[in-house]
């Protein structure tokens, strides 16, 4: 009882400092429904089973714990890629820095301006995928996001997007507390790539709902910024239709606290859903990947590939589940979560789960935690490769399986270069 009362207090304190954004009818309805969900669930606390490995306190306290500004010359990751750029500074849209929100085959608008318009498709997605992702496990921070998001993009894709849409998040205030919500619908046979990068804010709550219709393709590549002290809780909710493709990759370097949740529901036959993450942490770094993939259709493939390199007391968490519903025959599910611990102070906590209610499926999962291979390290050094460079080679080799999930070669190379730069700067 005391725990419940405390949860109610934490929730009330947090909501007290927030204002429900005003706007048109559909958005207001969605926000109010989400607010009711938040109040019913309460914000996460340390005692919640789903937060056993990650303390949510700093994600739920009323004020964002301050985060010092890092090098403003955040390594530009996607600069070699032609893209439509949309910039948010501490969660506030920057019209100056952004491109015109126009591209053939795309309808792009902003949540902050969308309320007044009757965007019929958004009604079916905004808060809807999030609400459906609240069972069997509650995700109150996502409901909070739906209720209070101040902005974000609404993108409907009807054709093949000529270039990726890039969301760039700059962090310029030490106390910023940003809540953004993106809503995406990729219509039948359409194709979109979303790029995201940057630390965003001292504290960032971000939610992305993606509805991938039959035969559509959605690719997502994200780099979470190099700020040391930022904190973030992010959610991706995806609904994947028949013969559709959903692929998401995230690179995380630095960040005091990151919780990336992904909730993917495969609802159409012959669909493919891959989600991957590579994270490298040094010191005060806590990174949590929490993934829930549901197979509710026949002959679908899903992959979860998560790799973490940890040192100097960094912590990595993986909670991953594959749920194969009754009738989801011929499911091919794969899940791997691995950590490379570069010293004894670092730790990796993993909870891999399979829950299967169909009999004709292939599902495998594995989780490992290990140190650098000393024999391989010596072999490299015996050929003249200095210890630090040899370690980096082995680190990159360890992460390769996750990076290989990036389909576009140019983007993969860009991410690799970004990672190599980070590793090289960390050499001692």
């Amino acid at each position, binding site marked *: 009882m005391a725990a419940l009362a405390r949860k109610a207090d934490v929730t009330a304190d947090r909501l007290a400092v927030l204002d429900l954004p005003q706007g048109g009818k559909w958005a207001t309805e969605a926000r109010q429904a989400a607010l009711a969900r938040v109040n019913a669930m309460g914000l996460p606390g340390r005692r919640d089973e789903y937060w056993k490995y990650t303390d949510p306190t700093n994600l739920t306290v009323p004020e964002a714990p301050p985060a010092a500004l890092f090098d403003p010359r955040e390594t530009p990751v996607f600069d070699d890629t032609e893209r439509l750029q949309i910039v948010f500074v501490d969660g506030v849209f920057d019209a100056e820095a952004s491109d015109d929100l126009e591209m053939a085959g795309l309808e792009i608008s902003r949540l902050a301006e969308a309320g007044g318009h009757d965007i019929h498709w958004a009604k079916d997605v905004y808060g809807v995928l999030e609400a459906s992702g609240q069972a069997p496990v509650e995700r109150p921070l996502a409901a909070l996001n739906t209720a209070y998001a101040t902005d974000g993009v609404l993108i409907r894709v009807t054709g093949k997007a000529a270039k990726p849409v890039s969301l760039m998040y700059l962090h310029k205030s030490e106390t910023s507390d940003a809540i953004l919500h993106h809503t995406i619908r990729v219509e039948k046979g359409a194709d979109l790539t979303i790029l995201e990068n940057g630390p965003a804010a001292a504290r960032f709550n971000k939610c992305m709902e993606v509805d991938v219709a039959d035969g559509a393709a959605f690719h997502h590549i994200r780099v979470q910024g190099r700020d040391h002290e930022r904190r973030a809780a992010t959610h991706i909710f995806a609904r994947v239709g028949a013969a559709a493709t959903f692929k998401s990759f995230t690179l995380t370097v630095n960040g005091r606290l990151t919780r990336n949740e992904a909730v993917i529901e495969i609802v159409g036959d012959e669909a493919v859903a891959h989600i991957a993450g590579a994270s490298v942490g040094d010191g005060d770094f806590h990174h949590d990947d929490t993934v829930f993939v549901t197979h509710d259709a026949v002959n679908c493939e899903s992959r979860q590939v998560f790799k973490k390199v940890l040192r100097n007391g960094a912590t990595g968490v993986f909670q991953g589940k594959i749920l194969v519903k009754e009738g989801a025959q011929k499911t091919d599910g794969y899940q791997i979560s691995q950590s490379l611990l570069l010293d004894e102070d670092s730790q990796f906590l993993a909870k891999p789960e399979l829950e299967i209610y169909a009999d004709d499926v292939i599902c495998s999962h594995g989780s490992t935690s290990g140190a650098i*291979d*000393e*024999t*391989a390290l*010596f*072999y*490299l*050094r*015996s*050929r*003249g*490769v*200095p*210890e630090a*460079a*040899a370690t980096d*080679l*082995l680190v*990159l*080799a*360890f992460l*390769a*399986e996750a990076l290989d999930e990036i389909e576009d070669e140019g983007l993969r190379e860009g991410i690799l270069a970004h990672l190599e730069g980070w590793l090289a700067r960390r050499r001692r």
Partner: protein
Amino acid sequence: MLEIKNLHVKLEEEDKAILKGVDLTVEAGKVHAIMGPNGSGKSTLSYVLSGRDGYVVTEGAAHLEGEDLLEMEPEERAAAGLFLAFQYPVEIPGVGNMTFLRTAVNAQRKARGEEEMSAADFLKVIRAKAKELNIDAEMLKRPVNVGFSGGEKKRNEILQMAMLEPKMCILDETDSGLDVDAMRLVADGVNALRDAGRGFLVITHYQRLLDHIKPDVVHIMADGRIVKTGGPDLALEVENNGYADILAEVA
């Protein structure tokens, strides 16, 4: 070239002496062979010289061209010109053979203050050398030694040696696991590198390899010491009679 004096080595983990006073000098331009029963310390000697962890030198010294090897990191020894062809080459998943070798070649050049090799030059040279060793281009692209057959791994060691052009080459049972043709390829690879400025220390159990790589000096190692040194005939004697006579004679 390589000068080993009264080298005593024990294991770091347990108080067990493996090398018990090795004395050995390999002159530039010469090929020395070491033979000896299993477990006599041949591989240990090669690891200690190249700087592997897990061993403690309790006495003695090892110098390469006058430089104190034992004071150096493994990569410094490599840059100074030491090379070990491993008895058991290591598989490194995720690291491309080509990337690995180019990183190694350029790291050594950098350490010696030389200019790095361009990607194009590197490619040209490695293709030619790989061809001589009958290593196909596909193998160069694969991760280091992963999925290579035993013989392919050994040929890959010789390819690395050919690319790095070390001054002092130690070959630890490079002949084991090789078929007759591969043995000839490997021997040709080694012979091609033989010159007045380079020394070789060839560890082997069989006379066969020494038919192709003619040694100048043959040593017999037993229980952590060089117990006998002679000319090429010594290898023939081992081949014909085994170690019993020699060991009895020095006991």
